[in-house]
Each structure stands twice: as structure tokens, then as C-alpha cells.
């Protein structure tokens, strides 16, 4: 199935003050592939994740499913969070956390036990850890538990919200490899929320770059990473320090991000007219970006 978010706008109201977090953003998350939503703090990417997960209501716009269902409704979207230990109930043993989605779906006890055992093995978790509490796990172990919990019910889409941001680099590499393996074996779709380009490079099939509540560029991962067309995308990618001292780093010259998603400062005619195609499945917010 495909999860569609169409023309989503989210306005937060607090003490009579309105803040527009997302402006008319459309996304499609499909089974078997990873859509990465990248952007900096305040870009609206986490708000979009919450809308996709049903944790935040869109002010305007529609969330819908397309295509034949492969699993029960209500279990179609699962989420893996940034802080693995905190995302688990501290009073529940690991077994109960992993089992919970199955209990809610009404899976019989014996079948649930079989699936919990199987999923524990697939995420590379020592079965002895099923009797532990989250506080007794390392960050990497807890994230494996959270991934098992997300996948055990056979979801269509898993939202990964900065899934490795709080993990050490060697642990991070193993979790990313695990996520890639599990996607090919289960066929789940991922909506990956990240500000870390190296994580995105490892997992993404398609990328949508968000800036100040709007998508400024979207397309196949290789196009966005290797031939970005929007100046903000270029700045974001160039700013990532390359783990090789022999590679000159252009990010050193990175300047403050532009005030407007339009490189012409909103003065050009195209700005505000949505995304423009610059290649196959490759869209950019403003065509004057191509002057760059």
C-alpha cells in the first residue's frame, strides 16, 4: 500500500499566536522503498512525521491509503523514535513491549509468542534480553527492541524518526545495516526523518528536502545527493564534513541558509507556484534555482 499525504498544512496555535509549521506539503511513502525527509530544525519534517503517524491532525489537507492492503488496518503505520530507551515503557519487560502490537491486533497467545521469537532473532537480539527491562539495555539493544516492536505486526510503513541520532557511530552503522536488511526481507516502506545526510545516503530511495515548512526539492536519492538543483539542497549536502582529510571540504565556505526557499528571495515569478520538474521524478521549488 501507499501512504499519501496531500497538500498538508499544519498551523500550531498557542496563546492566540499562530505558527505555520508546514505549508501545503505532499508526500507518498510506498512499500519496499525509503522516502527520506531531510531538513534542519524548524523545517517541519517532524510535524510531517507526526501527521503521517496520525499523532498530529493536519489543519488542511488529506491523509489516505492507496492500493491493496497486506495487513490489518490500524497496524499500518509504526514508528521508531530517536531515543530508544525512552521510547520503551520502563515498567515493561522487553517481551511485553515487542508483543504489545500483536496483543492489540488480537493475535492468539501462541502465535504471538512464535512471532515475537522470530522477530527477536531477525533483529539480532539475544533471546535472554526478552526478560530485561529497558533500563538494563544499551542504546543499540533498545533500538533493536524498538525495531522489533515496529515490525512484528507487519506494518505497511514504518516511520523512522532520527533512528540513529543518539547512537555511537559503530552501533549506528550496524542499526542502519539491519534496517536495510529488514526492508528487503519484509517489504515494509520507510519514512525516514533525518538531518544526517550519511544516514540518508545509506537508506534512502527517494528524498524530499524541507526548508521552512515547504519542500524545496524532491527526487531519486542519487539525483538529490549527487546533482542537487536547489541552492539550499546544495548547501545542506556541502555542509556535511567528509570523513577523509584528503577531500577538500566545501562546507567551510557554507554561509547562513537563505531566508526564503526561493533563491531569488521571493522576487521571481515562479515562486509560490509549487514544484517544477527538472528531470524524471525530480522536482524543485523554484526554477530560477537552476540558474545557480
Amino acid at each position, binding site marked *: 500500500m501507499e501512504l499519501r499525504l496531500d497538500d498538508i498544512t499544519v498551523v500550531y496555535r498557542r496563546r492566540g499566536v499562530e505558527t505555520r509549521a508546514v505549508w501545503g506539503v505532499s508526500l507518498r511513502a510506498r512499500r519496499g522503498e525509503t522516502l527520506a525527509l531531510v531538513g534542519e530544525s524548524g523545517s517541519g519534517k517532524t510535524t510531517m512525521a507526526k501527521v503521517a503517524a496520525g499523532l498530529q491532525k493536519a489543519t488542511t489537507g488529506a491523509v489516505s491509503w492507496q492500493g491493496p492492503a497486506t495487513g490489518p488496518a490500524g497496524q499500518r503505520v509504526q514508528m521508531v523514535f530517536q531515543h530508544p530507551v525512552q521510547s520503551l515503557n520502563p515498567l515493561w519487560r522487553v517481551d511485553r513491549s515487542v508483543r504489545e502490537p500483536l496483543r492489540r491486533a488480537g493475535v492468539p497467545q501462541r502465535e504471538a509468542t512464535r512471532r515475537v521469537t522470530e522477530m527477536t532473532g531477525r533483529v539480532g537480539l539475544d533471546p535472554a534480553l526478552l526478560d530485561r527491562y529497558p533500563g538494563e539495555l544499551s542504546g543499540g539493544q533498545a533500538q533493536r527492541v524498538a525495531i522489533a516492536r515496529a515490525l512484528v505486526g507487519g506494518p505497511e510503513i514504518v516511520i523512522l524518526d532520527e533512528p540513529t541520532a543518539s547512537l*555511537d557511530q*559503530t552501533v549506528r552503522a550496524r542499526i542502519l545495516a539491519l534496517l536495510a536488511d529488514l526492508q528487503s526481507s519484509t517489504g515494509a516502506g520507510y519514512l525516514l526523518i533525518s538531518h544526517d545526510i*550519511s544516514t540518508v545516503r545509506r537508506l534512502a530511495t527517494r528524498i524530499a528536502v524541507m526548508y521552512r515548512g515547504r519542500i524545496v526539492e524532491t527526487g531519486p536519492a542519487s539525483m538529490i545527493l549527487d546533482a542537487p538543483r536547489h541552492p539550499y539542497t546544495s548547501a*545542506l549536502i556541502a555542509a556535511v*564534513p567528509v570523513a*577523509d*582529510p584528503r577531500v577538500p571540504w566545501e562546507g567551510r565556505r557554507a554561509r547562513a541558509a537563505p531566508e526564503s526557499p526561493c533563491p531569488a528571495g521571493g522576487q521571481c515569478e515562479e515562486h509560490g507556484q509549487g514544484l517544477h520538474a527538472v528531470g524524471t521524478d525530480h522536482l524543485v521549488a523554484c526554477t530560477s534555482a537552476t540558474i545557480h
Partner: protein
Amino acid sequence: MTLLAVDGLSIDGPGGRHIVRDFAIDVEEGEVVGVVGESGSGKTLTALSLLGLLPSGVRAASGEAHLGGVRYLHKGRIQERPHATMIFQNPTAALNPTMRIGAQLKRLLVFLEKRHDWRTRAEALLDSVGIDEPRAVMSRYPHQLSGGMNQRVMIAMALAAEPRLLIADEPTTGLDVTVQAQILDLIRVTVTTRGIGVLFVSHDMGVIAQTCHRVAVMYDGEVREFAGVDEIFHAPRADYTRTLLAAAGQPSGRVDDGTPAR
């Protein structure tokens, strides 16, 4: 010329547990030396111990440190205040949330220099770290500024004392990448123009590769390798260095087989 020389530094935790063993490095003037490792490797405690800032329950059991030829750390204890300052991972939390930036700078400058024309000096300091509107920033509270702006303020405060050594503990972790690039550039320019040395603690191999001249790789409380940045990334000797490089997607690293490196 050698600016900082540390030798035989060991740190013990509660119950006499050895957290850091026999740490030794040196930093030249105008040089950035990285300390890289994962959580629990002891890199942050090592940095804190060099300024006598260890939390209670943790103590430096042994170790000598010289700064500018003067021994200031003996048997793990600070003998005299070194000309060194420190910046931290979360700048917004490191600043006083109840005071405007200007008031915090005033307090620092009046303490350091006993001067009452602190305002001109504060503006010049903020200007030197790339803050375009020093007056506007001085009238704000830390929560009204971005993380990147607060880290610039922290760097300005750290430089106010004219240190010879700056210790930077994960100074860009948690900042957006474009802001990180600007802060790293500021640190690099500061090293060049002021000739200070920097001890740069990080877990990020990309940041280390692009910022440091030499690198100490820490694992389980020990320095596993200390070498020039090019050697670390292209001719690593320690197994653990190769594991870190592999995790960072660097070809010199071996393929990680999932077992912990030793």
C-alpha cells in the same frame, strides 16, 4: 612549540574503577588535536580533568600536565590555574538562562579585567566571533537565540580570557549541519589568527577529519592510537581505528563483523 603536554593521566571512578588509564598527548601552538571515541571511552572526563572540572565521585589518580612549559597538573591535581578555557556540547544550557547575554559578558569582563568600559570590549568580542549585531544579541536571553548563536557567544566568552588552549567538548553536536560548518570554520580561523591550541573532543569522524591536525583515538579509557590526521584516516594502525573508519564509511576501515573491537 609544544603548548600542552599531558602524561600518565589516570582517572578513577567510584569504587576505584579505572575509567581512564595512562592518557598521554601533546598539542602544539596553532594546532587542533582531536580526541575521538564513543560514549564511555573516557574522552569527556579526560577533557574535564585537564581543567580540574571532574564531577564528584570521579578523581584523577595520577598524571602530569604542562601548559606553555609550566607544570600545572601534578599527580592528577591542579597546581595553578592554567591559561585554558572550555566550550561545551549544549551552549544554550551552558549559559545562564536568567541573564541577558550582555549581563553575562559584563560579569565575566569585569571579573577578568576590572574594567568598566566592558561594553565596547564585549561588542568587539562578539564581533570577532562573527556576530553581526552585537548590541541586539547582548539584549537577548539565551533561549531567544539559536544554538549556533549561543555557541558563538560561548566561544567569545572562552576567548575573553585570552587563553593559550581551548578545550572544545563536542562543540557542534546537536547543531544543524550548516551551522556546524560555520562554527568549525570559526574555530579554525581562531586557531590561525590567535595561534592558540585546541583540544577537540568529538565522536564524529567527519568533523575530526576536517578540523584536526592530529588525532588521539580513545577506546575503553585508553589512547589506542595517536597520529597525524592523514595517517589515522589512510594508514590506521589500531584495529579500533579501523572499526571507527568502517562505521564512518571510510574505505581504510575494515568491514565490521559485528564483534566489539579490542
